[in-house]
């Protein structure tokens, strides 16, 4: 290479080198530009760094945790530090450029973490994606230091919700997150539950903007019970408002179409305990009571015609007046009824062993009955009255039913509320038991209006005892009239005859002890008996031709005689004729026959035989058909003497085979040498016994054997006690009539000629 060439070459090379250099520099240039551009955009995308103070930041990690706004990654946590006191956590967040607006005063920041409770299930994505810091509601002047919310807000994306405050005496079972319903539509949430500065609980409620118009100044809130139980005639009813409400309850509000204007934000509204309380928003009335026992504010209702139309709002004793002031609100639509003539009556339930009246008041508690006025001037102050349910029931019954009064000598086991029965149907009830002016017990009763025709002016009442045990010879009766009857007894009535006219209001009746007495309509008759054995008052019947026609009311002894007071049923007045006679029928069993066998089972009864006289009587002398003592007593008493005899007292005395008397006693004679039998011969047969009459023992089986005859006297088989027979000589030899106390010899056997005697003696008194 020459120098020239070198020079030349040098120039060429130099050219080519310069050209090459310019071309290849594009690579580092692109690299530098790309790098620079990238770092520049990266820098540009960095927004401001903000600092948020939290109490705790579980799961927040520097460099990893994002700040999420509306689901968009708006920044990254750059540092997590504790403050110098170790009380707070400082979280530094590098915002992205587009999210720089979040660094403004009003932005809320909170740590989003999963909340899993029965009532609430939020932040599910945090379980998978980890906790994050969330922001909402930016606005206001730029800021770089924030205080984070302690917990996630309920509606992160609805910062502009409309808030109202609720005040109530107490707000149980309601909590943050509890839904608020308007006519079944969920329109909001409880945002906060707090105690205000007056110490009253307060709820902050958020209503979605869309539903703002549903809330008016007249709206009232009430808490929906999670479950409501209804126990009534229609059975058991359980309402569950849905599972979420079951857990956390719910609030509802309504304005009940009462007009009103839209409420302003943060307005203060009232919370009622129940829907009914919320509805009862009428005028505030004050009702005074002497005693407000049983009234529960917010629960005791005011009833009009049995329908609740109002509620006791509060109750306050007033020491100055000695009264209790109850603040009452009616449903607004009934407000006009509360005028000066209106009355309020506190009705209490009555619970006693004798029965429970007003079972509904037992469940619902007392209530206040409201009787509207008839258009007086409006007033706000009323004087209330208190009555028990029964009194109230009586007052009500007076309006509707047929009242009657029963008087009686005494009234055991007969309570208020005892049923009044008519043919076994409860047609009324006993309202009151008290003493009348003459200190006799009376019962006030009522027949329900639908049965008022059943009570005739001639009706007769009797007591149906709660339990009754009647015992007598041959019967035992045990009555239980149902459980209610067992507790309080009952009253029954019947007319026992075609009804004539219905009873008037407040009629007076007599209460009989039992049905038999009530049936026996006429005045009692008195029958005298020698012996009252087997007679049971109230049980022993009077029978005519075997049919019961009356009943024995009482058995007393008067002057050594038994006086039976008896009543005859209606229709048997003819038995009162003065020559009627009455006899006690008792069972009689002997070898001669069995009579009155039915009395073994039914007890004795009195058989009535009507007379023929036209005159009636109240007093009779009765007789005993089988026990002839009364008859015998008026008879002829004789003494029979014998050395020895098997005959005992009770043996019969026969004349020609006819029973005419009886052996009443067997004893030793006064000198002790003989046996003395005392016999009584019936009065009408007394003349058969003459001074020369012969008595012999005809009892036993006697066989007399002769050559041509074999005779057995079998008559005595009928009389195991033995029997005495006598014969009187023919008229010429009979002698004078025997007198009481005469003595005769008792022979062992008759002489044949005695049997042939055939005197003619008139029989009778």
């Amino acid at each position, binding site marked *: 290479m020459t120098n020239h060439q070198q020079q030349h070459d040098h120039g060429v090379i130099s050219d080519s080198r310069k050209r090459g250099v310019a071309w290849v520099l594009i690579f580092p240039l692109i690299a530098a530009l790309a790098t620079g551009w990238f770092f520049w955009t990266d820098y540009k995308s960095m927004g401001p760094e903000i600092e948020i103070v939290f109490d705790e930041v579980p799961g927040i*990690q520097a460099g990893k945790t994002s700040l999420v706004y509306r689901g968009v990654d708006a920044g990254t946590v750059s540092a997590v530090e504790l403050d110098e006191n170790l009380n707070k956590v400082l979280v530094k967040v590098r915002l992205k450029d587009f999210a720089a607006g979040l660094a403004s005063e009003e932005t809320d920041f909170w740590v989003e973490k999963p909340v899993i409770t029965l009532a609430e299930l939020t932040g599910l994505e945090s379980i998978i994606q980890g906790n994050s810091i969330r922001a909402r509601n930016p606005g206001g002047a730029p800021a770089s230091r924030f205080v984070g919310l302690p917990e996630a807000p309920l509606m992160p994306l609805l910062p502009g919700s409309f808030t109202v405050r609720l005040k109530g005496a107490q707000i149980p079972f309601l909590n943050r997150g509890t839904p608020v319903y308007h006519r079944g539509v969920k329109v909001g949430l409880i945002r906060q539950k707090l105690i205000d500065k007056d110490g009253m609980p307060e709820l902050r409620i958020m209503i979605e903007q869309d539903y703002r118009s549903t809330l008016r100044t007249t709206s009232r809130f009430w808490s929906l019970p999670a479950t409501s139980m209804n126990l009534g005639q229609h059975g058991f009813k359980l309402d569950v408002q849905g599972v979420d409400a079951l857990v956390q309850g719910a609030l509802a509000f309504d304005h009940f179409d009462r007009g009103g204007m839209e409420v302003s934000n943060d307005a203060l509204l009232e919370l009622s305990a129940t829907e009914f309380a919320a509805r009862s928003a009428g005028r505030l009335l004050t009702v005074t009571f002497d005693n407000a026992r049983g009234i529960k504010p917010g629960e005791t209702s005011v009833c009009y015609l049995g329908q609740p139309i109002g509620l006791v709002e509060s109750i306050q004793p007033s020491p100055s007046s000695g009264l209790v002031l109850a603040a009452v609100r009616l449903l607004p639509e009934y407000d006009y009824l509360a005028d000066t003539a209106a009355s309020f009556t506190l009705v209490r339930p009555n619970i006693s062993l004798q029965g429970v009246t007003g079972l509904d008041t037992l469940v619902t508690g007392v209530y206040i009955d409201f009787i509207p006025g008839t258009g007086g001037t409006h007033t706000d102050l009323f004087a209330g009255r208190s009555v028990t349910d029964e009194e109230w029931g009586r007052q009500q019954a007076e309006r509707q039913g047929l009242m009657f009064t029963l008087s009686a000598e005494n009234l055991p086991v007969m309570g208020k509320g005892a049923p009044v029965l008519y043919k076994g149907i409860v047609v009324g009830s006993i309202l009151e038991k008290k003493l009348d002016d003459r200190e006799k017990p009376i019962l006030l009763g009522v027949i329900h209006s639908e049965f008022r025709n059943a009570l005739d002016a001639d009706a007769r009442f009797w007591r149906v005892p709660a339990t009754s045990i009647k015992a007598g010879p041959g019967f035992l009766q045990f009555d239980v009239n149902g459980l209610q009857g067992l507790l309080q007894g009952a009253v029954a009535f019947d007319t026992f005859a075609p009804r004539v006219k219905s009873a008037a209001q407040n009629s007076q009746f007599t209460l009989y002890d039992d049905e038999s007495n009530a049936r026996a309509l006429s005045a009692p008759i008195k029958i005298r008996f020698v012996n009252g054995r087997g007679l049971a008052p109230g049980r022993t019947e009077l029978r005519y031709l075997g049919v019961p026609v009356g009943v024995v009311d009482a058995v007393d002894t008067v002057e050594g005689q038994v006086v039976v007071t008896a009543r005859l049923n209606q229709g048997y007045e003819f038995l009162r004729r003065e020559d009627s006679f009455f006899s006690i029928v008792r069972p009689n069993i002997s070898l001669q026959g069995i009579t009155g066998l039915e009395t073994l089972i039914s007890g004795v009864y009195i058989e009535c035989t009507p007379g023929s006289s036209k005159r009636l009587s109240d007093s009779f002398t009765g007789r005993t058909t089988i026990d002839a003592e009364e008859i015998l007593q008026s008879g002829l008493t004789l003494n029979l003497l014998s050395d020895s005899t098997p005959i005992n007292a009770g043996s019969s005395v026969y004349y020609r085979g006819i029973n005419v008397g009886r052996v009443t006693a067997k004893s030793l004679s006064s000198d002790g040498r003989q046996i003395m039998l005392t016999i009584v011969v019936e009065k009408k047969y007394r003349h058969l016994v003459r001074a020369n009459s012969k008595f012999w023992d005809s009892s036993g089986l006697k066989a007399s054997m002769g050559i041509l005859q074999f005779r057995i006297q079998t008559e005595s088989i009928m009389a195991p006690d033995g029997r005495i027979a006598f014969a009187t000589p023919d008229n010429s030899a009979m002698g004078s009539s025997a007198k009481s106390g005469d003595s005769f010899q008792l022979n062992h056997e008759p002489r044949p000629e005695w049997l042939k005697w055939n005197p003619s003696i008139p029989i009778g008194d």
Partner: protein
Amino acid sequence: MTDHLKVKLSRALTAAGIILYIPANFLPVMTITLTGQVESLTVMGGVFELYETGLVPVAAVVFLASVVVPVVKLVSLSWLLGLHGSEVNQSRRMKVHLFLIRIGTWAMVDIFLLSILVAVGQLGILASVQAEAGALFFAAMIICTLYAADIYKTHMIWQQPMPNST
């Protein structure tokens, strides 16, 4: 293309590689979202991550391929190209150059790894892997070094230096 141009091009690519090396290592190459935990990893961060997970051999390979090799290549290339035309250590430079070409392919291990991860690691909300800008820079850097080493031929080490203007 003259050898001279090749040298120039090689030098330019090396320079571009050095420039790209910075964002390639400072920017995250990938973002792993594992159960919501978002993690952006740089190359070095990835190595640490692997190491901390206990995958020491893999970490070593990745470290060698992604960190050591590019540095070695860039440094070596700079050394080679800087000494181009001189007669110093010519035989050693030749060995280094041959070594560079041999290890050159390994440098892409990280990118392969990343592309597999991105392709496979899409498990929806549970886990996802996304390539980030750093990977682009890293790939570009590797490509630059690859071409730089390839364009600069071994025989050029032995070329006489150009008679520069004194």
